[in-house]
């Protein structure tokens, strides 16, 4: 217990608490000196909470030691490129480590924690929706300064943003763990920045959760003004949290790009990179650049609230629709940030389990970049009903429909890869196939929403909710689980329980189909999204009850996964070899990986996915050199 309390995580949280109090106290003191009000509904005033939240993040990072090397550099003190690992066992994961594999696991576990919290929120409001009328989120109840329907709105909004952050952390985790191994690099290009990118996400998650207790906010995860300009102080914590999490995403993406460009092993030319690396590059291009715009849009609302700056206030000559442009410039490409790595996982794993070359490698690689680039010019399809200029509708409709082409390339590649393959069905393959089918549903329900005439009717209905849950589950959740089952032996030297894995899959997949089909059904019949109650006369009660049951079953399946995940770390079946018979370099050496990855560098001598071609080789390891010490940088 004492050891746990002195970990970097707990130190960071302690200092975040101190920083928050200091920042809030500072503003409160200044306000007292100026004769302004010093307390408000949630004890501190809004400016005090904002500075407090911000300083909390800074104190977290200063207090847990993830920036100490940079401060040494600024003072002209050099530090070794890699510190000796000071901790072992579980302590390693609660302290600041520069090893990309440790950071990858930190990301993944944090993502699983956030998925559980976001899922819990979903189950709470899903329960309320099981029947028409208000059952337990009633107008009379009070919690955190909110009545039932207000709490519903907060939970619904936080479900969205917490899931988004958990997805960003989840993909960062997989990319962090896998990409340097695939490239044959010792680590990421900037190990300290890598640690920073992870640790900055922790106070961000705390800020997001703080918004729940500080009055919440009823805006949905999109935070549109004017609603967000009038919401309780919780919305400011939400803005700060997203802003901070954004930095994690931006700096992580920067690191990935630099690593891929600079750290590839000998012979790994662009067209011989593993396909997952291409996906990571495409995703990072978006995350590096577009993320700034959601930060900016939320910052502008924050300043509008704090200083009365009228960016989005029509009374002051502002324009609320401008917010939607800035916001969606990131938030639409963001869904490609979520799904591209997942689609990369599908393309990466499919040849392994079909025992056949990946069909059309070049086209698949380019399709990731294609999706990323087209993704920059489609944002206003979220705004067909917003009152923006009408002449914008048509170009955005066509650019959106264009996304179907590179995505279609991927589907054809997958189908052709499976064709006449010697397919085996271990758990990761089940999730890969599940991902393909679910993403297909998401893909097929997309173009109707992109078409203006249809979207005008579907906008803000449960049809949209069903559609994007399909894309996110197919593009992220299923491949994410596939990746975890697949690379788990690499990280631990043990494999996860196959039976539990199959139960997880066969419980989650049908429940999920029921959930999204049900959502789309009532959506087409006119069920509004983001609403705590519905008219019993609409006749949706039965469907909603079934949806709620399906939601609980998905929750149960994820619980089984989490049990399996943590149980297998200690008790899983030993699997230290090439479990899946893969050609990828990380599987050619025993698991788990040592701290500095490969003992011997490797050279790429062939194509990555020539499964089933006799005598073909992807990588060749250099012969072990005797008594040659690896020089320390």
């Amino acid at each position, binding site marked *: 217990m004492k050891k746990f309390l002195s970990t970097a995580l707990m130190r960071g949280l302690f200092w975040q608490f101190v920083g928050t109090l200091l920042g809030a106290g500072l503003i409160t003191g200044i306000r007292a000196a100026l004769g302004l009000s010093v307390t408000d509904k949630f004890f501190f005033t809004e400016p005090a909470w904002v500075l407090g939240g911000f300083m909390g993040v800074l104190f977290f990072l200063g207090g847990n030691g993830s920036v100490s090397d940079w401060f040494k550099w600024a003072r002209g003190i050099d530090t070794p490129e890699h510190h000796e690992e000071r901790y072992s066992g579980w302590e390693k994961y609660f302290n600041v480590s520069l090893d990309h594999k440790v950071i990858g696991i930190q990301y993944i576990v944090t993502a699983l924690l956030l998925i559980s919290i976001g899922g819990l929120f979903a189950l709470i409001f899903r329960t309320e929706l099981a029947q028409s009328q208000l059952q337990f989120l009633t107008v009379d109840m009070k919690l955190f300064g909110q009545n039932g329907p207000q709490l519903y709105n907060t939970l619904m909004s936080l479900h969205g943003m917490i899931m988004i952050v958990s997805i960003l952390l989840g993909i960062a985790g997989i990319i962090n763990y896998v990409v340097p191994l695939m490239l044959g690099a010792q680590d990421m290009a900037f190990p300290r920045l890598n640690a920073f990118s992870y640790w900055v996400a922790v106070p961000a998650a705390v800020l997001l959760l703080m918004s729940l207790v500080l009055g919440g906010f009823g805006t949905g995860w999109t935070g549109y003004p004017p609603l967000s300009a009038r919401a309780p102080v919780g919305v400011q914590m939400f803005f700060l949290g997203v802003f901070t999490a954004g930095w994690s995403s931006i700096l992580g993406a920067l690191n990935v790009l630099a690593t891929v460009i600079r750290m590839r092993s000998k012979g790994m030319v662009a067209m011989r990179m593993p396909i997952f690396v291409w996906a990571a590059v495409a995703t990072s291009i978006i995350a*590096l650049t577009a993320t700034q715009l959601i930060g900016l849009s939320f910052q502008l609302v924050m300043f509008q609230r704090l200083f009365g700056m009228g960016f989005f206030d029509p009374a002051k000559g502002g324009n609320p629709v401008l917010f939607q442009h800035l916001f969606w410039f990131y938030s639409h490409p963001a869904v490609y940030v979520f799904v591209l790595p997942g689609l990369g996982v599908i393309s990466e794993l499919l040849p392994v389990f079909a025992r056949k070359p990946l069909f059309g490698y070049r086209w698949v690689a380019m399709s990731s970049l294609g999706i990323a680039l087209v993704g920059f010019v489609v944002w206003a399809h979220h705004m067909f009903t917003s009152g923006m200029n009408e002449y914008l509708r048509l170009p955005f409709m066509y650019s959106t429909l264009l996304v179907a082409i590179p995505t279609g390339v991927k589907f054809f590649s997958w189908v052709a890869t499976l064709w006449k393959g010697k397919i085996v069905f271990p758990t990761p393959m089940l999730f890969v196939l599940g991902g393909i089918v679910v993403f297909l549903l998401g893909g097929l329900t997309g173009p109707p929403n992109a078409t203006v005439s249809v979207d005008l009717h579907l906008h803000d209905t449960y049809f949209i909710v069903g559609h994007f849950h399909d894309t996110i589950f197919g593009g992220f959740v299923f491949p994410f689980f596939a990746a975890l089952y697949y690379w788990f032996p690499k990280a631990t030297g043990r494999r996860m329980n196959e039976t539990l894995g199959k139960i997880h899959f066969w419980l989650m997949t049908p429940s999920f189909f029921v959930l999204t089909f049900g959502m789309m059904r009532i959506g087409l019949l006119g069920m509004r999204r983001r609403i705590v109650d519905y008219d019993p006369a609409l006749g949706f009660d039965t469907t909603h009850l079934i949806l709620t049951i399906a939601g609980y079953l998905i929750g149960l399946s994820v619980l089984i996964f989490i049990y399996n995940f943590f149980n297998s770390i200690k008790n899983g079946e030993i699997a230290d070899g090439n479990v899946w018979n893969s050609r990828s370099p990380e599987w050619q050496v025993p698991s788990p990986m040592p701290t500095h990855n490969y003992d011997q560098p490797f050279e790429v001598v062939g194509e990555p996915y020539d499964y089933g071609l006799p005598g073909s080789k992807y990588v060749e390891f250099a012969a072990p050199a005797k008594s040659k010490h690896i020089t320390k940088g």
Partner: protein
Amino acid sequence: MSHILDKSSAFRQGVVIFVYLAVLTALEYFVAVTFQAVSILVMVAVIKAALILYYYMHIYKLNEESDAEAHSYSFKTGTNRLGLWLFLLSDSFVFAGLMATRVNLLGLTRPHLNQILGLAVTTVLLVSSFFMNRGETAMAHGDKKGFVTNVLITFVLGLGFLLGVVAVEWPLAAEEGLTASSGAAGAVFYMMTGMHAFHVLTGLIFLLVVLNNVRKDVYSAEQHWGVEAAAVYWHFVDLVWIFFYPALYLIGRLL
């Protein structure tokens, strides 16, 4: 390696580029006060930006072949350089977003601002970039004394710019009724100058760090990534102002 000039020609190049930039700024101002051709103003800004990107920020260095040995200083500098440029690319999306906000909210109008002061701070920042370039060149040729002198001048000019905007321009504008809460124009003006001033401030801190490290003899003619990074960042801040100055002071008719 053809880009490495000897010290005196490097200094000469810096002067020539500075003269170009000064002439273009004067042209910009002239166009703005006489016949208000937005396309010309945009073009001039793009040319100025290109000059700075190439001659002051040395963007071509991204292409330089570095030592293949993964632990060498030159390889790490190549990686660091790429990282810095990726960061600047990311950062430029914030400024582009602010620019889009300005275009959306104000269109072809602009707030009433003190023109003389605007031109003065712009000139100060441009001159600071010139001295930053001299400082970096001096360091690249092992001239630490020259480096310190030039970077100190850069620092003073940068501080002058920062105070000129935040301590002089802001109160003046507020006196004329342009406050943060007065309307869209005020909001845009304070947000754009404020975000830029924040970057100037971080640049100044960066300069102080580098100056301190030179005092501790951390850098040499061959190994001075910190100096290069501070210089590129400083020029980037100047680059942003090259677009913000016409957007706030020159383009459009007065509100």
